[in-house]
């Protein structure tokens, strides 16, 4: 006998964290904020009695590349599919340039270019016919269509393949074709779900260069990935999601400074490991933490950079020889590892 209530109600079924009340806006439009292109507020999603998104909210500024990162099953694709008008959230609001995504999906579809994580192509069509079909689907006609087609083909470097049938294209070329398709109607926002997954290193680097070129052209790009090295060099800001909760979002540099505060880690490679040096270093007022792993000494330093020599003076006094010193720069990987616990929702 099933005593549980029917899993139909939109009310949260799984316990959610207490959250601030969110202003419910009935109008389908809201005041445009000049810099913000995408605004997501209080997004909840329940699938078959399982809640997969909890109060997700973030903003993407115009002309930036926003990286949506998280482990597999964290809720990246669900959020992206909601933003692409493919899913309706259980609760929450999304705006693209002041237009409500759920209330006016037809307008949104004209203004976004969506590239799914798996590119399905139509067998039997050539690259040109494939792109012509999507141009027609966006109601482009005549000279305008031809001009946009040739621009997109040139940008994505598909010129030599226009008469090739799409089903014989390599994975990398299919990704390019799909990117070309998302650009065909000149959208404001590109939504790319795991765009570089399955690509070889060369294709990945080329794809990254293509994204940089698009940013230079003024496109706003929201892309998701769980490959951090892929996002690190190109993202202006990131959102980190785990177990359906957005645990941090903002510019990469801001998050890094938030995480490390005013502390910087240094790594010193010793000639021989000397345990005795640890106590001397701990006595330094600007050093919080010291670790010695084989012959690699790591310490976090919170003092002024011009006083760093006092630390090395201790090493010299204790006759500790070392071969190199490296200041550890924070990157997406360090952010990700320090914020997430590797669990999926």
């Amino acid at each position, binding site marked *: 006998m099933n005593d549980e209530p029917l*899993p139909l109600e939109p009310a949260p079924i799984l316990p959610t964290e207490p959250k601030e009340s969110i202003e419910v806006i009935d109008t389908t439009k809201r005041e445009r904020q000049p810099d913000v292109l995408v605004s997501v507020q209080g997004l909840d999603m329940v699938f078959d009695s399982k809640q997969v998104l909890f109060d997700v909210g973030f903003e993407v500024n115009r002309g930036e590349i926003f990286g949506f990162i998280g482990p597999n099953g964290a809720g990246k694709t669900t959020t992206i599919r909601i933003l692409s008008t*493919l899913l309706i959230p259980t609760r929450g609001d999304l705006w693209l340039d002041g237009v409500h995504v759920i209330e006016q999906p037809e307008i949104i579809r004209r203004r976004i270019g969506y590239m799914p994580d798996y590119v399905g192509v139509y067998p039997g069509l050539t690259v040109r016919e494939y792109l012509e079909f999507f141009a027609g*689907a966006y109601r482009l006609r005549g000279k305008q269509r031809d001009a946009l087609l040739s621009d997109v083909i040139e940008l994505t470097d598909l010129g030599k393949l226009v008469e090739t049938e799409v089903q014989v294209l390599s994975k990398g070329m299919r990704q390019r074709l799909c990117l070309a398709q998302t650009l065909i109607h000149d959208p404001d926002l590109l939504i790319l779900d795991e765009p570089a997954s399955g690509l070889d290193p060369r294709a990945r680097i080329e794809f990254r260069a293509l994204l940089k070129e698009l940013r230079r052209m003024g496109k706003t790009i929201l892309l998701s990935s769980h490959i951090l090295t892929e996002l690190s060099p190109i993202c202006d800001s990131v959102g980190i999601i785990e177990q359906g909760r957005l645990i941090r979002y903002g510019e990469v540099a801001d998050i890094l400074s938030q995480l490390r505060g005013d502390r910087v880690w240094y790594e010193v490679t010793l000639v021989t490991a000397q345990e005795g040096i640890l106590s001397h270093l701990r006595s330094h007022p600007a050093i919080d933490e010291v670790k010695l792993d084989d012959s690699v000494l790591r310490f976090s330093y919170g003092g002024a950079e011009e006083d760093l020599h006092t630390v090395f003076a201790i090493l010299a006094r204790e006759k500790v020889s070392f071969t190199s010193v490296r200041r550890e720069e924070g990157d997406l990987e360090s952010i990700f590892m320090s914020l997430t616990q590797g669990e999926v929702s």
Partner: protein
Amino acid sequence: METSPWYQRLPMFGNLGMPIALKEVRSLIRRNRYFWSQFIYLAFLAVGVIIVITGAQGTVTKQEAVGQQLFAWFFRLQAFLVALVFPAFAATSFSSEKAERSFELLITTDLRPHELVWGKFIGIFGNCCYFLMVTLPLLGICILFGGVSIWDAFENYLLLVLEAALLCIYGIWVSSCTASNLRAIMATYAPVLFFGFVPMGLMQGMRAGSGGTQGVFSAILDAFAGQELLVMAIVAYAAIGFFVFCFVAAVLRLSSPESNQETPLRVYGLIALLVGLGLAAWYVQSSRTVRPGWGPSDDIEAVFALAMLLAFVLPIAVLSYSSGRIETPLRTSRAAGQRPWVTRLCWVLLPGGARGYIFALLFVAVAYFGVHWIGTDIASLSGVLLSDAPDARSVLAYGRDVFGAIAFGFVGYGAFSFLLSTAGVRGFLNWAIVLATAVLLSLLAVVYWVQVESEQLPLSPLFSTSIVVSVMTYTQGAEGRDWLIRWCMVVHATAGALCFFGGLVVLRMRRLPALGVFRPGQKAAPMPVRES
């Protein structure tokens, strides 16, 4: 960005789905299987023509007679091939897009759902018309023998085009409901097989059978003798209604719940009901003039025939609508949250849940006992109002029995639906299998009954038309053969009980709750750990 002219952006016109139609044609004709399917289609037809010509030359002396025979077989064979080949093009129209994951790209374009459906239809239907066109040289051979006119050929081709159009739009609707090619093909072919081939086969088989059997089918035609215009109107009503229903239902499946696309379906339902009632009224009115001896009891009989039709069709329509509503991928709990009572109602009526079975039981109670108790009073009242009261009373009596038999049928088929759902067959496919089974069993019952009762049948023309909704077994039995009705009730009730308990056993084995309503993807409860 420059966009297309204003008239192309009107919701009803758009670009008439032309980009997608062009894409569909290109994709279809460049596949190897397209060539082979066309080759086999023509080869079958050519072999059929050769067989008929060689067979007729030995038996038929007049050249015109050979031509007529060849002409008849040519179109008969082609009607069969159209039903066999064309649904395959349409059945995978949307399901293949979903399976290959190009569907997401398609629905995030600027194309509206009605443009998607219309574009698919134009592309696939255009291909089908091309198939029909390439058979024209073979038709030329038939005409060479003489005995038939060009107008005859045109008329028959028109019927084939109509058949192709209906099959295409039906396949597209089915395809829009599922993401599996196999399911789409099965659900498309099952009704085509049962509604098309089985009755055709039965009619062909009965042609050589008893006179009584022949009488069953000729009675359907007799019921409309002298009312050719009405027959044409009914055929047009059925064809247009079916086409519009499939089109609107497919559009609804592809639409966002926010866009309130259900209004067209409601409007369609209302128009269809009103036109249907109008046609029924036309039939009664014209029968009074055309058919001698038509009296008030015949009016009541006509009303009962219509009521039976509605009693059978409406619950199935509700069930299919509710199952379609639940399984639409775009319809999530947000839409449900706005109108929770609608969703709850749909869940109650959803075939596949134990609640659906309880609904069937309620239907039995209302339909059978309600009609049984109230029927006598109505009969008495009509006895006061009508001059031929005994007839009215008898009509009501067997109307009541027929209602009861249908209600018991629901017990059986409701439980069958429940059993299927416990095995994982839900939603549209569940409904299609149950409906196909109901039709098949009813036809088999007719055959059985005809074999048992091969003498002259006391036919009532209006009731015999109800065979299409599989109630004929009961109506025929009602006229002096109550045992058949009782037998059907017992069989249905027993089968229903067996299916219901079978379903409970399956649920127990799958560790699923017995009285819950099962949604696709619902996980089984954890196995209880038995302490040693």
